[in-house]
């Protein structure tokens, strides 16, 4: 009998092959696991951390846009937000390919003591989802054997760590475990928006400029250091440093400059060249725009009388008021003569809205701070602007821009008479005639002045006037 030959060695080969595959698979899995952690950290977590800041800054921009509307388009400011007193909460906004989200809380936290202009704080948060696997072997310390993966970046894998630890407002109140649908990173920033005041230069016009007369001069002083006197040609004078800020800013290339300018000159594409008549810098490449001016909406209710002035009228407000809450008068016309008296010896704040043309003689007694808002045109003589304190900041004219941009608004000031005042009229054509001695500043559309005027810019106007825009002046991140 003959036995059949069997091949037991084939089974051994199979086992060896399987063991080899198993070992190689284990090595591969180990490598993959390590790589996955690093990939998660480097790719998705770093990206999400940066994108969360982009989202938070987008929320800051949304808040900033609404803050600007409080002066540029007051009726539309914070529309669609949840408004409670001076606090405004935005709805959550989702955007971007990676489904980022942001929201902002804006509140009025400070009123300027001098101007009454509000300052706003905007707190925004941005959230970016973290893709990839959840926490794998991450550590939050740096040292031997640890890599500090989450040392910087706080990732919410299961719950929102900020609300759990510090509360929704970061003040320790209302702590709660809020589950998150997917891993995410949230970052929070706080920005402060400061009001931009209108009088940064002696003369600023967005369109054409002609003037002043050939024997005119523009210089400056600072009323905080005392009354004006000419010292722009005397470097030894203690107030010389305040005397050469009589700057002129033109938003177009059309500029005919005459007289002596103790300050800087800028145009948008003009051909002004250095000369002995301009002491400061010349820049012919500065474009700018000035937005139309709208009637402020934060004034208190108007007084019951007077409601129009067409003869000689003298008013003494019932209370001194403040810059933020002046005594407010609403007049359908203002002609004749209006005298405004202080309340006792107190600094007295008054706002007057004239819904028609301005042709009145105005007498502002010392200690009175007046803002005149008018919807129509202004046509007066220099002597009709009687500001007895001599401080330009105490008499401020604001020309409300016509709703129809095609409507021409004019301000015409004829001789005789000297005065101290400021004008903010971004939509108005200004004509200045004669040889007056003026203290103040003007913002207008076009400027024409053919007289040999002496124009003194008051550097104290830097921080005076109603807010005409806002700028972000502070940025802080809540790094918790």
């Amino acid at each position: 009998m003959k036995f059949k030959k069997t091949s037991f060695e084939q089974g051994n080969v199979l086992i060896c092959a399987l063991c080899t595959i198993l070992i190689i698979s284990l090595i591969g899995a180990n490598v993959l696991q390590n790589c996955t952690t690093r990939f998660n950290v480097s790719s998705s977590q770093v990206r999400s951390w940066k994108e969360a800041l982009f989202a938070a800054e987008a929320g800051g921009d949304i808040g900033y846009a609404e803050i600007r509307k409080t002066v540029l388009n007051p009726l539309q400011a914070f529309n669609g937000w949840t408004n409670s007193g001076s606090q405004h909460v935005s709805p959550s906004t989702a955007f971007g390919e990676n489904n980022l989200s942001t929201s902002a809380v804006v509140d009025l936290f400070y009123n300027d003591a001098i101007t009454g202009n509000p300052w706003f704080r905007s707190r925004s948060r941005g959230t970016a989802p973290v893709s990839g696997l959840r926490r794998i072997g991450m550590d939050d310390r740096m040292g031997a054997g640890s890599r500090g993966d989450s040392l910087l970046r706080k990732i919410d894998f299961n719950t929102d760590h900020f609300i759990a630890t510090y509360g929704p407002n970061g003040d320790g109140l209302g702590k709660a475990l809020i589950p998150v649908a997917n891993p995410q990173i949230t970052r929070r920033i706080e920005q402060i928006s400061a009001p931009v005041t209108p009088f940064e230069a002696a003369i600023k016009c967005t369109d054409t400029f002609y003037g002043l007369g050939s024997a005119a001069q523009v210089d400056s002083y600072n009323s905080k250091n005392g009354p004006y006197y000419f010292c722009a040609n005397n470097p030894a004078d203690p107030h010389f440093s305040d005397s050469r800020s009589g700057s002129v800013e033109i938003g177009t290339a059309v500029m005919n400059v005459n007289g002596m300018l103790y300050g800087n000159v800028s145009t948008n594409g003009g051909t002004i060249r250095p000369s002995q008549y301009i002491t400061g810098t010349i820049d012919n490449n500065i474009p700018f725009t000035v937005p139309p001016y709208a009637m402020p909406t934060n004034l208190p209710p108007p007084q019951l009388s007077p409601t129009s002035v067409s003869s000689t009228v003298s008013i003494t407000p019932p209370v001194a008021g403040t810059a933020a809450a002046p005594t407010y008068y609403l007049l359908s016309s203002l002609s004749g003569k209006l005298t405004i008296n202080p309340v006792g010896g107190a600094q007295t704040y008054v706002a007057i809205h004239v819904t028609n043309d301005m042709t009145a003689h105005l007498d502002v007694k010392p200690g009175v701070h007046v803002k005149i808002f008018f919807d129509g045109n202004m046509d007066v003589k220099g002597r009709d602007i009687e500001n007895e304190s001599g401080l330009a900041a105490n008499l401020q004219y604001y020309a409300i821009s016509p709703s129809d941009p095609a409507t021409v608004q004019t301000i015409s000031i004829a001789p005789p008479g000297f005065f101290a005042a400021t004008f903010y009229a971004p939509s108005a054509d200004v004509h200045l005639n004669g040889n007056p001695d003026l203290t103040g500043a003007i913002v207008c559309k076009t400027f024409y002045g053919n007289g040999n005027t002496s124009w003194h810019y008051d550097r104290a106007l830097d921080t005076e006037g109603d807010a005409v825009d806002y700028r972000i002046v502070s940025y802080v991140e809540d790094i918790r």
Partner: protein
Amino acid sequence: MRPPSQFRINGFTLAEMMIALAVSAVVLGVTLTSSSSLQKSFNAIDSYFATHMQQIRIVDYLSRDVKRGLVVTTSADLQTVTITVPNYLVQAGDPEAIANPALVGCPRTPTITNTPSGPQVNYGAVTSTIVYSINGLSILRTENGIVTTIASSTDQLVPQTTDVELANTEYTKTSITFQPIFTSGGSVAQRSGTTVYSTAYLRNKRRG
């Protein structure tokens, strides 16, 4: 009848055994060598990657602090950066905290002061100081005396920060290099090839 011997059929000759052993030894040697090389490569890549992550972390830390900084200065050797930042949170010992201990850790409402260069936003009466420095193989971040090691590597991480101050703005330029462990020559190219650059602007630059 005598059955055939299975041992004789299934056995190996001496020659077969020697050939099999030789082949096995070669295969085992190749496998071990490959595994060792693979492990070295993996370690090198992992180390490079980890150090690169630390580069990014240093850059991100610096950018975050510079952005919210009021003042930034760098040392002459460009390796120590000092940043003054607002005191956003009420700290223990602050006047607000002494008056009301519950405020510790709360965000602070800023105050406004007028300066010759314009209005200034202040978070508390004092500011915080953050210093980035190198200590041996570690990069340290020290905030008000509290030290945190934000990076540590045997790969010789070297951050350098330049502070650029212009009329209306200020920014820092940072470059971070390291020497990968698997390179042997230590040439300039091997280090510069690892450089990461970053630029961050101060958003709270204080003038005057």
